[in-house]
């Protein structure tokens, strides 16, 4: 096993996430794409940890931090989407032009 194979996989996952983030209209699927990108970042952190093996497994610690922050982000994101849906009967990001200049 070489490190590059995991880094390339993570780059591909991140690219797919970028595409989904830009192309999707439904706000929930935009959040799903962000989860894909965060998963790619976690693969990188864990790969570097497996390469260099620190005493406290710092790479794995930080991937768990990322997972926690992602969970918080999903919670608050879905709350905002639900509130916007209640006010505007739509969860499509391109119809949210309320604050557009």
């Amino acid at each position, binding site marked *: 096993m070489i490190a590059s194979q995991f880094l390339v996989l993570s780059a591909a996952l991140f690219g797919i996430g970028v595409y989904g983030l830009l192309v999707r209209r439904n706000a929930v699927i935009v959040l799903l794409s962000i989860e894909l990108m965060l998963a790619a970042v976690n693969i990188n952190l864990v790969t570097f*940890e497996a390469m260099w093996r620190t005493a406290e497994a710092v790479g794995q610690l930080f991937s768990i931090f990322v997972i926690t922050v992602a969970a918080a982000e999903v919670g608050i994101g879905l709350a905002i989407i639900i509130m916007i849906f209640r006010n505007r009967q739509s969860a499509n990001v391109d119809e949210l032009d309320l604050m557009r200049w």
Partner: protein
Amino acid sequence: MTLAEWIAQPINWFYLHFGVVTLFCAFRVVTTQNVVHGALYLVAALAGVAAQFLLLSAEFVALVLVLVYIGAVLVLFLFGIMITRAPTGMEARLDNDKKLPAAVLGVAVFLVSATVSVMSFGDAAIVQVGTPTDTASLAVGFIGRFVVPFEAVGFILLAALVGGIAVARRDLTPLEEEQRRAV
């Protein structure tokens, strides 16, 4: 390392298998025309990522990923999809009309970071394959050197969830308030 040598390692077969599954499911997340299917494909993609973590001997992170993402976050997503009444059947337009620029940017991001990774690390090997990470060392890191970030992240999670409840909660109309007081 040549391709033949790489293929000769049985662990790389597992890598290829789970990697193809992960990438296919991730691709379907951003292309499917059914919102619920998208969420379920994300389950499979994240399960593939957890399998990669097992190959990298990060057992605890793999378990946390399965518990937190597949167990909790995906349920939250499914609730969100159902509450916002996003059509659970086929819908005409889930994508906007900027597909080509987005695809170009996605491929560019992939190419740049993949090229840089391969150029920097080449065929640097992951040496201690199969030696599990001691979970106790993770715990020591959490409550030792990284105790402040650990507390901060816990506080962020609490604040975000309380904030989520406060944002999503519907305030009573004056009439409803009146009725509640009457009871």
